């Protein structure tokens, strides 16, 4: 009896928290279908704001640039960071520890401090701010996360492996591709995912390093009072894409876990 009461309380609590998390998002999505431009009173259903969204050049431009920057920053930082992780494992201990400590600076520092640091750098070097500096900044703040994701995996590899490959006649790059990369693939994919979401959603660092260039976050931040439902339409589209990605990812890991369990059962 007592136990059941607990369960009811637990259940109510869970429902309340989940509602807290999702009601704002759902309400935001609902108003994207409002035929009126009010964000407080729902008149009737329409796709008007979605059409408006695609007509708005400022928004579509911000979305496209956000994608381009995120894709470039992800590829470049994962590429550089993966190679660096392999090199780091070979460095002398003192150098390695120094580098790994410095690597933590942007992770522990408040974002705004990292942002103004980069702003000062670009200003001091008289580099004109724009998409290029935004990209540089994104590569720089993604890299430390690539390192902390890939480096431990590289560290756990057998160091003789590359040497064995090279002794068998493989040139360094080939040894890398066939001996190391297959074993750190999971960590590299994780680094790609982390970098992409960090770059795609970044606001503070982009805002300080981009000058007049905009991405989605900057656009949303600098919106004047005239907020209109096309922002809701944009948000709704983004939320739908994210939901699909999250669900697919969840189902896939679930499947893998199940497979793992079956495998274990068999081995027992």
């Amino acid at each position, binding site marked *: 009896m007592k136990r059941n009461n607990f369960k009811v309380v637990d259940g109510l*609590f869970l429902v309340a928290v989940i509602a807290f998390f999702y009601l704002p998002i759902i309400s935001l999505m609902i108003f994207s279908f409002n035929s009126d431009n009010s964000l*407080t009173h729902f008149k009737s259903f329409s796709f008007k704001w979605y059409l408006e969204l695609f007509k708005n050049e400022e928004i579509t431009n911000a979305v496209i640039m956000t994608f381009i920057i995120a894709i470039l920053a992800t590829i470049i930082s994962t590429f*550089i960071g993966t190679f660096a992780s392999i*090199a780091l494992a070979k460095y002398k201990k003192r150098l390695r520890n120094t580098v790994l400590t410095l690597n933590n600076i942007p992770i522990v520092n408040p974002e705004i401090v990292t942002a103004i640091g980069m702003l000062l750098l670009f200003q001091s070097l008289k580099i004109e701010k724009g998409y290029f500096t935004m990209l540089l900044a994104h*590569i720089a703040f993604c890299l430390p996360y690539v390192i902390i994701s890939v480096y431990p995996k590289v560290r756990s590899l057998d160091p003789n492996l590359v040497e064995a490959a090279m002794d068998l006649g493989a040139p360094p790059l080939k040894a890398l591709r066939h001996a190391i990369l297959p074993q750190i693939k999971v960590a590299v994919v994780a680094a790609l995912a982390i970098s992409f979401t960090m770059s795609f959603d970044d606001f*503070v660092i982009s805002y*300080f390093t981009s000058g007049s260039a905009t991405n989605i976050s900057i656009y949303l*931040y600098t919106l004047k009072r005239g907020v209109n439902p096309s*922002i*809701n339409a944009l948000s709704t589209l983004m939320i739908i894409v994210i939901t699909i990605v999250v669900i697919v990812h969840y189902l896939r890991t679930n499947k893998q876990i199940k497979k793992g369990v079956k495998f274990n059962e068999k081995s027992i």
Partner: protein
Amino acid sequence: MFKIEPLKKEKLKRRKFKAVNLIGWPYLLILFILIVIPVLLIVFYAITDNVKDIYFEFTLKYFLMFFKEAAFVKVMKDSIVLALITTLICLIIGYPLAFVISRQAPKRQAILILLVTAPMWINMLIRVLAWKQIFNIIDERIIGTNFAIVVGMVYVFLPFMVLPIYTVLSKIDPLLYEASADLGSSAVITFLKVTLPLSIGGVLSGVTMVLLPAATTIVIPKILGEGKYLIGNLIEDRFLKAGNWSYGSAIAIVLALIIMLMVVLTKRFDRNKGGEAYEKE
């Protein structure tokens, strides 16, 4: 013939070494130029004054300026107080949430954690704008109050509190609970003597993960505070509107030091707790 072989091997080894070293260089360059130098630049600008175009002079006046201006010190105090309140509320909601989730069947746990973490993938500005619209529907007057800011911060940062606590709780061996119950402890005693001490590490990392971004956010006060000014906004203004880099840098350093101090204090709290537990043994 005899002599060539070892020589060749030497050479090969050296080349391997070089190749491996080289591939780390792009990273080291970026680390140095885009991460280390900017930090040094902040310090440099904060403690110097640009007398002529190139000539810089050592000065602490920007730090003094900050502490002299009561309004700015108040902004700093407000930011920290709001961040502390947010952290406390996140803890009050987040701990029971993590606890309840960790007690569910494994499959349900996975789904619940997914539901808690999924909003983090949505752009933070969108989530904050969603709250603005909610407040507009309920009552426009809520926007601009501290209440609106705290709600927004709790909403955005709560997952950061739940995750580390859940991770720690889900690792506790259920046999410990059983053992505690078998030894005659009530549920409350078990919680106080087993669950809480074992999860304190998760609580502390949750606290720092909420406190840090909450104290420095510029998005939430701007959108939900409408005109309300927190420390992040102050730095933003100094840099992007006033163009006073030295002043902005000094404020940023004060902010970074205060945050570091808070993190160190939290860590010390952890150690003290551990020490006490030992002493009691």
